[in-house]
């Protein structure tokens, strides 16, 4: 809770002036140098910490004071709370130039860990990371004094190797590898003892510790692991936990050939041509060099963990840990097999058994991903058929568990990591893309950026059309998934529950209604189905209208414009003429068949209209090739209001590309036909009805109609008189009171200016022809590319030439 008190403290801390801070710091210094460090010192250090931490701008503390903090931190007499506070302040100020700290003399492992946290925060300008690494290995090498535990040092080491694996020499890594192998394999399997409470009556030997147990209570019969349970734990058991926790990191850095940083590509180790079928046995492992020995122990540890994950835990939360251990174990096995392919044979059979054990259990679904990754990496080497694994993963899991956000995230990451799989057309991965979109439909905000990365891999000439429909219907998919989740399991015996003639009253009823069932099934399909026609989803879309305002559906709808733009950008790279034509036809058709969410429709229209222009630029001949569809669309009056953006851009495209310079097949008859259709449209929307109210249309629709008609007339010059006459009538239109009451003044002025300019241009037909129909090679010059922008400018120039005196041009 960010409370009023906290807000006030924060404000005060930020407003402390430098002088005040200096005085406070000297007060703290005096306390720290005093004989006893009590509650007052604690309180002051806490406030000092806040003063430094509260602002992102630097707080200057005197160099001597910073030195004092370091001295106090390292002093053995100092209470732990004070030490932790000093470390916190030093870290907060980092990177810090006044640091004199060194870990060289520190014997106490806990203090060493604390000091390391300060040193590692310095950004490694002075090789602090390496120095700390050296010190830690040195401490680990020797026998630790009584009461000290290596437990506090392993996390530091793990941190260091993540930042700078080259901090350790090969000899040092061998030393640590050797110890890790021992910690992993030879920790005590007796429980620890509680610390004796002391006192006269205490008897430290009252209770003998028993053996550790498994998570289900059974006595453990094999070596100790993180899934071993005891009342108290010994030091080596703690080290076992620490060692396993850092094992993956360690193996990634030092397990392979040569030095690897954790971030580098770890697709390595597949360089052995002869695969050993005989696994290394434990007895001979003592002879192995440290790296190989650690690998062996790690592998055994992972096998044991996987077996232990089969047990039913007494404590529910241990079940979560079992699953996390399972995932880690499989991942580590994968790494080991990459580093030494002789382990592949052992691992494969083991993991296949594991897979069949867990594949039916939804709570283990997340573990299926590293298993599948393992088989993707190694099944070829092991000559094992793992298609069934992939099929189950891609067909069943998304369909059943799309609503699990962590699984959804990890699944999509898995797809991104293996994106090359989607390029094979016939593969199960490629075929399952409708299933993948369920993750996005349900969990839109966290996954949209992941899908932006993934979509290009799913798109090619074969899938483009289906994905186009899928994207437009994505919010419907969300609604359908919602219904699927809420509807009880389908009864196997379908009673005559739904009479086909009776319309379902709710969406839930519709889910099993014979008329709607197949539509739901299509929408919720798990495999690509390009032959099916999504147009038949129209009744379903209407039915789902009641869910159109549900927040989840709206969130999904907001992702569609982004994906559509990306879709077209990718498609533009490979689409040929026929595919472009198909897309344009579908674009026009689908504009009628969208889920009824108002903001969604507007956004989709906006994207589709600009992408239509892009497609025309790519394949200008489409205007001629699709003249029927385009004529029909541009000749439907309702389109001007309902789909204004698309209509305007279609009309613009007609004006731009209906020309013999873009397609030799463009005939005068075609131009005339388009002219007549558009003329009728312009007439319709500028008609002055004497008694009825005048509807208002988008001014830019009027403008673009006028411009296009002019352009067409410039190419088929018998049309010029008709256009000129029409344009001259625009004056009457804009001055009519019925019109001025529904349009705003600026818009009407613009319309009039444009009409005038176009008319004037038509008075010089050859100029008009040049401006409006440039030869294609000239079109590549900068002027022509910007002809859309420069057209008004050009028109104004021409107008000025014709009307030297300011005529009826306002302003």
């Amino acid at each position: 809770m960010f409370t009023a008190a906290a807000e006030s403290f924060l404000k005060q801390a930020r407003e402390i002036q430098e002088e005040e801070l200096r005085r406070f710091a000297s007060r703290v210094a005096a306390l720290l140098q005093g004989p006893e460090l009590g509650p007052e010192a604690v309180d002051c250090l806490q406030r000092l910490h806040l003063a430094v931490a509260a602002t992102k701008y630097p707080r200057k503390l005197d160099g001597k004071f910073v030195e004092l903090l370091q001295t106090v931190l390292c002093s053995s007499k100092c209470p732990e709370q004070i030490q932790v506070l000093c470390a916190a302040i030093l870290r907060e100020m980092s990177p810090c130039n006044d640091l004199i700290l060194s870990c060289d003399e520190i014997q106490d492992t806990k203090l060493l860990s604390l000091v390391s946290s300060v040193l590692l925060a310095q950004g490694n300008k002075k090789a602090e990371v390496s120095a700390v690494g050296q010190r830690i290995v040195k401490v680990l090498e020797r026998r630790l004094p009584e009461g000290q535990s290596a437990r506090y040092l392993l996390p530091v080491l793990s941190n260091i190797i993540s930042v700078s694996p080259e901090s350790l020499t090969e000899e040092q890594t061998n030393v640590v590898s050797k110890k890790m192998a021992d910690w992993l394999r030879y920790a005590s399997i007796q429980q620890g003892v509680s610390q004796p409470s002391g006192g006269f009556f205490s008897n430290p030997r009252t209770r003998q510790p028993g053996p550790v147990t498994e998570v289900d209570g059974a006595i453990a019969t094999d070596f100790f692991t993180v899934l071993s349970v005891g009342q108290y734990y010994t030091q080596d058991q703690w080290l076992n936990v620490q060692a396993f926790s850092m094992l993956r990191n360690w193996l990634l850095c030092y397990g392979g050939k040569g030095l690897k940083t954790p971030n580098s590509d770890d697709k390595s180790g597949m360089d052995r041509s002869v695969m050993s079928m005989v696994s290394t046995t434990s007895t001979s492992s003592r002879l192995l060099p440290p790296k190989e020995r650690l690998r062996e122990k790690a592998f055994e540890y992972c096998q044991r963990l996987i077996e232990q994950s089969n047990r039913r835990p007494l404590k529910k939360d241990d079940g979560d840990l079992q699953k996390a251990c399972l995932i880690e174990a499989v991942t580590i096995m994968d790494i080991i097999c990459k580093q030494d392919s002789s382990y592949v044979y052992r691992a494969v059979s083991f993991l296949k058994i594991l897979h069949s054990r867990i594949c039916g259990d939804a709570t283990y679904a997340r573990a299926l991903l590293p298993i599948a990754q393992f088989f993707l990496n190694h099944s070829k080497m092991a000559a094992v058929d793992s298609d069934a694994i992939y099929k189950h993963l891609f067909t069943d899991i998304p369909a059943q568990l799309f609503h699990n956000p962590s699984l959804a995230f990890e699944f999509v990451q898995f797809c991104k990591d293996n994106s090359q799989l989607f390029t094979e057309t016939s593969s199960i991965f490629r075929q399952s893309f409708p299933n993948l979109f369920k993750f996005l439909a349900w969990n839109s905000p966290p996954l949209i950026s992941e899908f932006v990365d993934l979509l290009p891999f799913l798109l090619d000439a074969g899938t483009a059309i289906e994905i186009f429909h899928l994207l437009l219907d994505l919010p419907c998919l969300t609604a359908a998934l919602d219904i699927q989740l809420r509807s009880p399991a389908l009864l196997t015996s379908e009673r005559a529950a739904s009479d086909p003639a009776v319309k379902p009253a709710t969406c839930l009823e519709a889910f099993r209604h014979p008329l709607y069932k197949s539509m739901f099934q299509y929408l919720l399909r798990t495999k690509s189905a390009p032959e099916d026609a999504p147009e038949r989803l129209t009744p379903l879309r209407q039915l789902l209208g009641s869910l159109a305002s549900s927040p989840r559906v709206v969130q999904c709808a907001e992702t569609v414009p982004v994906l559509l733009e990306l879709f077209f950008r990718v498609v533009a790279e490979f689409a040929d003429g026929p595919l472009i034509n198909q897309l344009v036809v579908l674009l026009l058709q689908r504009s009628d068949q969208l889920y009824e969410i108002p903001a969604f429709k507007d956004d989709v229209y906006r994207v589709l209209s600009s992408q239509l222009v892009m497609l025309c630029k790519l394949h200008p001949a489409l205007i001629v090739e699709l003249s029927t569809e385009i004529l029909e669309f541009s000749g439907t009056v309702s389109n001007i209001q309902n789909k204004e953006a698309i209509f305007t851009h279609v009309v613009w495209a007609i004006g731009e590309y209906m020309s013999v310079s873009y397609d030799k097949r463009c005939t005068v008859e075609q131009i005339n036909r388009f002219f007549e259709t558009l003329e009728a449209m312009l007439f319709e929307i500028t008609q002055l009805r004497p008694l009825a109210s005048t509807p208002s249309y988008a001014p830019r629709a009027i403008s673009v109609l006028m411009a296009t008609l002019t352009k067409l007339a410039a190419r088929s010059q018998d049309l010029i008189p008709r256009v000129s006459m029409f344009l001259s009538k625009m004056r009457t239109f804009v001055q009519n009171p019925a019109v001025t009451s529904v349009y705003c003044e600026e818009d009407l002025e613009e319309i009039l200016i444009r009409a005038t300019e176009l008319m004037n241009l038509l008075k010089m037909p050859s100029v008009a022809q040049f401006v409006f129909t440039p030869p294609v090679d000239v079109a590549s010059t900068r002027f022509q590319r910007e002809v859309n922008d420069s057209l008004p400018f050009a028109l104004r120039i021409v107008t000025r030439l014709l009307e030297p005196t300011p005529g009826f041009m306002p302003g």
Partner: protein
Amino acid sequence: MVRAFVLLALGGPDPPTLPGSAHSGPAPCRVLYSRVFRTPPGTPLVPGGPPRQRLRRKEQLLAVARQVASQCRLLQSSSGRPSSPQLPQLPDEPISLQDAPGGVFQLPPGDPFPQRVTVTWLSVLALAFALVCDPQENLSLAEITLRRLAPRLLASLRLLGPGADVLLRPEAADVLLDRLLPHGQMLFLNERFLQATDREMGIKTSR
């Protein structure tokens, strides 16, 4: 490995409860406590030296916090949860967070860290806890770690109360992190190990 831990106040549409406060804009998202465990290699040096490096660190953490707050709000609205807080339980007991909203998302390279990171988060009432992890991290373990850190921090820092312990007692949070997430290392602790850790920290558990 975990790069950073952030404890943030979600902020949001409610105006701040300052008495006599003139403005009533939405409360900002605030980082109440944070701990950065390391800066990975390949991070470009910032010109301007240590102060700018520190500034960048603070701003990166704030950027993470804002993303978490935004994802949390979106999740709350999509699942139709009421924005009224649940009844807080006895502050002494570790609170069970089984149904607490949470999620995971990725931040691309350059925004705000030079490398890609994965953020996993958990929210309780008006607060959120987030782990900034390396891309290939074991997210199941990260979620377990968060679910263990959150109730202990809530109790130890009295986060559900009216005080400002979270700002004034950083060492309490440090101690918890040193045990459950030392130097950014997540630990595979089963329930008994966790109890042993609680004992070491002096936390009373009911089990």
